[in-house]
Each structure stands twice: as structure tokens, then as C-alpha cells.
């Protein structure tokens, strides 16, 4: 255990700290003029967005506005759909991930993803979390146990599952499964976590837990979260992007978006006039 905490401290020290860093947080992701087509359907139009380090960016908008599609372009999971075409550039830490030679598997280890519906593997709780480290070659049992414990604690689910590590993950409740999926993400020590409507299948109590977790995780990770719940965006994000019909209508600090939006369409949406 002492080893674990030393390791965590070491990691925290590497991160920029204090107010100085606050002023100029590094940009993790920047999207330049991204267009996307599903077959002939033009789903994203000239998207420009930045994600900063240790911030939560919320993406809001009505169903079908392209917000999930956009977040899936960031780890190139969108390519799992047949017939997808993407143009433009997305820089992750300065490298264009749509460059032909960019190692997509490496990107996906640095960028974790939590899906709309919890999707644990049909394995034990332990194996679910150990899955990521295992495929990247970690075999040492002690180390794996340590990683699993650390990740489950990080996802605020350790106390609930510590006695059930060998049970099948499908036995957990929906909210627990989703936090398990977050723990699974943390186990590979990602840099960014993408969340695609992570609470839409959860009850209010579980939702609250996940929201609190996002707030905690922000200290170490950069998070982008798609949500259809505007209150959620207002509660947990630093910046908010409002998507409509595949375009970014407005992207600004969350306070500004919710108190003083620039565009009348944003105002209409957040005040519930449509969507």
C-alpha cells in the first residue's frame, strides 16, 4: 500500500500545479475543421474545439446533433462504422491523429472511453479492470492486484466490490457497472477520458456518484463528456460546447454559456425551448 501512495504522489508532482498552471493549461486536443460523413450523410461540419488539461469539457445538444459522433472521432472509434469519411485535423498533444501513420492503438491506451451503456466484459470484476494492463503486457500478479485496487478506489467503487472481485461483473448494478468501466479506464493510466453520455442509463443516485467522480478525476485527467442533461453540464464542466445539426454553435466557459450565451439558438436550447 505504501508503495501505491508513493507512486501516486510521484505522478501528481509531475503535473503542473497551483495558480500559475491554472492560467495557461495546456491544450490536449485541438480539432481543426473536422468534417465527417456517414456514407452520404454529412454528420459533422467544420468542427473546431479545444480540450485543455485537467478540465472537463461538456458537449451538449439535441439528439442526432453529432455530439457522440464527434467524441468518437477523438479516439478514432468512429471508424468502427463502415463507410465513414473524416476530413480535417485533430491534434492530440501536437500530433495529428488522422495522420496515416499515427498508431491508433497507442492513442486509445492514452485516451480512455466510457460508453453510454455500461459494457463490462463477461468476466470477473478483477479481470475487467486487469484487462487493459494485461493486453499491454503486464503479467506480474502483485502489480496487477495493486493496479486493480488503485483503479477501483479511483473510481469510488472499491468499498462496494472489494469482497466480490472474483464475481462476474454482470452481477453488479448498472451504476456500479458504469463505475467499474471507469475503473477499467483508469487502470491503463490514461491521459484523457472520453465519456459518451455515461449517466443516461443510470438512476439519479448513481448519476450523482458518477458526477462526483468526474469532479475528482479532473485533478488528474482531462475529461470530455457528452451529455443530454444540461444541468449535468452546468454542474460538472469547465467549458461547454453546444452542438446543433453537426455544427458547433457555441463553445465557451460553462458559466458564460449558461448565464450569457452569445447565440440565440444556445439560449433557446438551454432554456428548454427545443431539444
Amino acid at each position: 500500500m505504501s508503495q501505491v501512495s508513493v507512486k501516486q504522489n510521484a505522478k501528481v508532482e509531475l503535473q503542473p500545479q497551483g495558480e500559475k498552471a491554472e492560467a495557461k493549461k495546456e491544450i490536449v486536443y485541438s480539432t481543426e475543421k473536422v468534417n465527417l460523413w456517414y456514407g452520404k450523410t454529412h454528420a459533422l461540419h467544420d468542427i473546431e474545439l479545444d480540450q485543455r488539461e485537467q478540465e472537463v469539457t461538456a458537449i451538449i445538444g439535441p439528439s442526432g446533433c453529432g455530439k457522440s459522433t464527434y467524441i468518437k472521432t477523438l479516439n478514432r472509434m468512429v471508424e468502427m462504422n463502415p463507410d465513414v469519411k473524416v476530413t480535417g485535423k485533430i491534434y492530440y498533444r501536437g500530433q495529428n491523429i488522422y495522420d496515416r501513420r499515427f498508431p491508433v492503438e497507442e492513442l486509445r491506451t492514452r485516451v480512455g472511453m466510457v460508453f453510454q451503456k455500461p459494457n463490462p466484459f463477461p468476466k470477473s470484476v478483477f479481470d475487467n479492470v486487469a484487462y487493459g494492463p494485461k493486453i499491454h503486457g503486464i503479467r506480474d500478479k502483485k502489480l496487477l492486484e495493486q493496479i486493480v485496487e488503485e483503479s477501483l478506489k479511483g473510481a469510488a467503487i472499491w468499498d462496494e466490490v472489494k469482497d466480490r472481485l472474483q464475481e462476474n461483473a454482470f452481477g453488479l448494478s448498472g451504476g456500479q457497472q458504469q463505475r467499474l468501466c471507469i475503473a477499467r479506464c483508469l487502470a491503463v493510466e490514461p491521459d484523457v477520458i472520453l465519456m459518451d453520455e455515461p449517466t443516461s442509463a443510470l438512476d439519479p443516485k448513481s448519476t450523482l456518484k458518477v458526477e462526483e467522480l468526474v469532479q475528482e478525476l479532473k485533478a488528474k485527467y482531462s475529461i470530455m463528456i457528452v451529455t443530454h442533461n444540461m444541468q449535468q453540464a452546468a454542474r460538472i464542466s469547465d467549458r461547454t460546447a453546444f452542438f446543433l445539426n453537426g455544427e458547433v454553435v457555441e463553445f465557451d466557459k460553462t458559466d458564460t454559456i449558461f448565464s450569457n450565451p452569445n447565440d440565440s439558438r444556445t439560449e433557446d436550447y438551454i432554456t428548454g425551448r427545443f431539444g
Partner: protein
Amino acid sequence: MAQSTSVSALIKEKRQKSKRQKLENLVPAFLFAAASVSVLTTVGILLTLIVETAMFFSEVSFREFFTSTEMQPLNRNNPTFSILPLLSATLLSTVIAMFVAIPIGLTTAVYLSEYATESARRVLKPIVEVLAGIPTIVYGFFAFTFVTPVLREIIPILDRTNILSPGIVMGIMIIPMVASLSEDALSSVPNSMREGAMAFGATKFEATVRVVIPAAISGIIASFVLGISRAIGETMIVTIASGSNKNLTFDITQSMQTMTAYIVEVTSGDAGAGTTAYYSLYAVAITLFFFTLAMNMLAKYISKRFREAY
């Protein structure tokens, strides 16, 4: 309003008067009778087997049948009965068949379910399934007249009838069964599993091997077991291509006789009803029956035991 009441009254009246209700009552009985046919047949076959097998064991001891090594049922002076030569042939041919069917069937299934494009799958799957529709006599003929001669070019010591060639051909025959059932199991693994795996930087192959196949393992193993059961029961191919030497050996180049082929030989041969050789048929048949029954139950158990709920 008035009209609709009268319509419903009319319907009510019709309902009471008509034969529909009577027919409705008869339906379950009819369906039950249909379902009973297969149950009764099974019971009937099993009873016949047991009775005739008892006759056999009144003449030949259990010990001789299951532990001696000579099978000479039609030897006039000193007939001997042992299931071991037949059992070894059945097991050998089954093992050879599964060595062919499992790797090819499973890789075919993985390709069809995980890698093939929609259009490739639409063309390939029916073609694979055509293999399942070929009569086994054609496979037997194919083993005897094509596969054996080709194999004898490579392995000169191979007998003209041998267990290797029908084993391989039986494997080919079972490929579609393994491929098709495994493919069903793989495709029923939800996409969210694949997404989850790949979102961690797993390659498609890693996701397939570490997540999709384990998630579908119950269906896959069940397909193997059903394949084994099919190989054990297969008759025509081995009868034609493996000859009738009742050889207790593990040398796959030699002619051997499986349990099924023995039954064919004796029923079509000279064993008169009531002779010990005739009753030996039933003893062999009941052994065969228990083997395939055990396999089918194993398949059921596996698919239940390892079922992953997603």
C-alpha cells in the same frame, strides 16, 4: 354505437355456438400426441437395445466384451467378442476429424463473424453451409477414390483402406457444423464488447481473442462437442473408406472398423438372427448410443454452465 354492440353480441353468439372452442380444446392433445412420437420412439429404441443387449451378455461376459482384444464374431470354431478394436477405430477417426474440423471451423467462424465484410459474408456463409448438405455417401466415395490415393502418394505405407483418410474427410464434413454454430455464438456477442476492448487500444485480433471468443466460449465448445458426437455416429464414410479389419491399434495407416461400420457389416452379412454375433450388434449399438448421449448432454451442460449473460 348501436351497431357495434350488435356486432359484439353477434360475435359472442357465434363464439358460443361455433366449434372453435371445441377445436381449441383438442389442439393441446393433438400437439402432445405429436410430441410423444419422438419420446416414444426413443423409449422404444432404448428398450429394444436393452433387451437384446441382455441376451448378448447372457452368452458373452462383460469382461470379455470390454477387456479382451480380439473381435472375431463370425469365426465358426471360436468366435470372440471385444468392443475395444471398434472403440479404438471410432476414437481415432473422431480425433482425426476434430483435428481437421476444429481449427478450420473456428477460424472460418472468426473470419465470417469478425472480419468478413457484409457482402463477403453473404456469399461465403451459404457456400460453407452447402458442405453440410452433401450426402455422406458422397463423402465416403470421395475419401476412398480421391483422398486415399492422394495420401498414398505422400505416405506410401498407407493401406488401401485406412482410418486416416475417412477421418480427414469426416473432419471436412463437420467443418460447416462447427463454423456455423461458432459463428452464431460469436455474432451474438454484443458490439459494445468489441468497442469496449478496442477503446483500450486492443487491436481487432486482441479484442477477438481476449474478449469476443471468451464471451462466446460456451457456444463454441458446444459446437465442438456436437461435432464430436456427429463424428462418433458417422457411418457411411468409415464403412466405405476404412475397410473391415477389426484391428486394435493406434496406427492410422491401417484399416480399422468403427462401431458404426461393424453394425453395417454384421447387419448386411451372414449373422443369422438369434446368433451371438447378431446380438453383439445391440451391445455395440448401446455403447454407441451412450457415447453420443453423453456427448450431447455434455454439450448442453457446457452451454448452460458457461453461458455469459449480456
